[in-house]
Structure formats: C-alpha cells, structure tokens
C-alpha cells in the first residue's frame, strides 16, 4: 500500500491504519493480519455494514417499545414522564 508522497508520511498512514484496527471489535480484529491494509479495509467495511444493520434493528425495537406507551400501563407512565421535556 503506497501513500501519497509529500502529503502524508508512511508513519502517519500506519498510525491511521492502527487506529482503524483498534476500532474493530475483538472478534473482527483477529481476522486482520498485521499491517495488512487490504484485510483491514475489508473488515472495516463489513463492520460498518453490520453497524448500519444494528441501527435499523434497534430503531425497529425502539419503535415497538414506544408502541407499548400507547396503553395505560405503569411502565408506559414511567417512560412518558422520563421523556417529557
């Protein structure tokens, strides 16, 4: 993997690569070899896609949770009072 000469040093590039690697969860970090930019990018892409899916899934579940606020249960009252601003 080459860097743009004069724009960023190889050392700075390696630091960025390390930073990205540290952001991966432990299980994904193991899939990435040392100083292997290709695998790191692949794993990062996969990780971002899974995070997007998690946001979708959690949005759906939060929406379901809000649906429970439509009734008059004690739980709904508590949630309503906590979110009231």
């Amino acid at each position, binding site marked *: 993997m080459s860097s743009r000469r004069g724009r960023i040093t190889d050392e700075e590039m390696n630091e960025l690569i390390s930073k990205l690697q540290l952001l991966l969860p432990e299980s994904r970090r193991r899939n990435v070899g040392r100083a292997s930019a290709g695998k790191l990018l692949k794993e990062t892409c996969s990780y971002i896609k899974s*995070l997007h899916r998690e*946001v979708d899934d959690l949005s759906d579940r939060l929406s379901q949770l809000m649906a429970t606020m439509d009734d008059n249960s004690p739980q709904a009252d508590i949630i309503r009072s906590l979110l009231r601003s």
Partner: protein
Amino acid sequence: MQALHFLQALARIARAAPKPAHSARTRQIRHAAYASMAHSSRSSRRTWSRALLHRLRQRQQQRPGRLLTVRRRVRIVTPITSRPEEPARAETLRQLVPGGRGMEYCNLLEETADYVQCLRAQVQLMQTLLDAFSS
C-alpha cells in the same frame, strides 16, 4: 451531546399525535439516530457529518407517502479510476462512509475512524435505552 440530541428527538417522536404507524415511527427513529450522530459536537466539523445531514434533509423533502425512498443522484466527482495507488477495497469504503466518494485516501481513513466511533456510540446508546426500558 449525541445522546441528548437523540433523547430529545425520541421524546418528540413519542409525543407525536396521531400515533404514526410502526414502520413510519421506525423510519423517524432511524432518522433521529443518524441526525444525532451528525450533530454531535465532535463530528459536526467532519465531511461525513455534513454529507450525512445533506442526505437526511434530501430524504425529508421527498413527497410524504412515498414508501420507497431509493433515489440515486449521479454526482460528478473525481473519477475513481484515477486512484490506482489505493487498495481495491477503498471503493467499497467510499460508498459506506457518507461523502466518501470525494475524499482523498488519507482523509477517507480519518473520516472512517471518526464515523465508526460515532456509529458505535449510537448503537450502544440505543441498546442501553432498550435494556433500560424493557422489562
């Protein structure tokens, strides 16, 4: 600040009357999640957060009642083929990170790191809320 913004948005969604359909509310929550990420003070200076906000506003301006919001705009940016020194996988990353297509490679890596951190924080926040309010 990301958390506060999201909680305020959730409160607004919860107070909406009449109650929206489940799918509409899911979309609103998802929209609030990404908006909160983009508005967090750390990321507001980032290219990805500006690109994300732009994309979110575009989606909001579409005609209501449209179920499918898939609409690709062809934008003129520096041709990807003129970047032979990049790893091949960089192209996929450019599509995943908002605003990634127009970035220099080293900027792309920096923006990716910041974007991933915000995404992670948002996911953790939403999970924590669910855990806290579920019996």
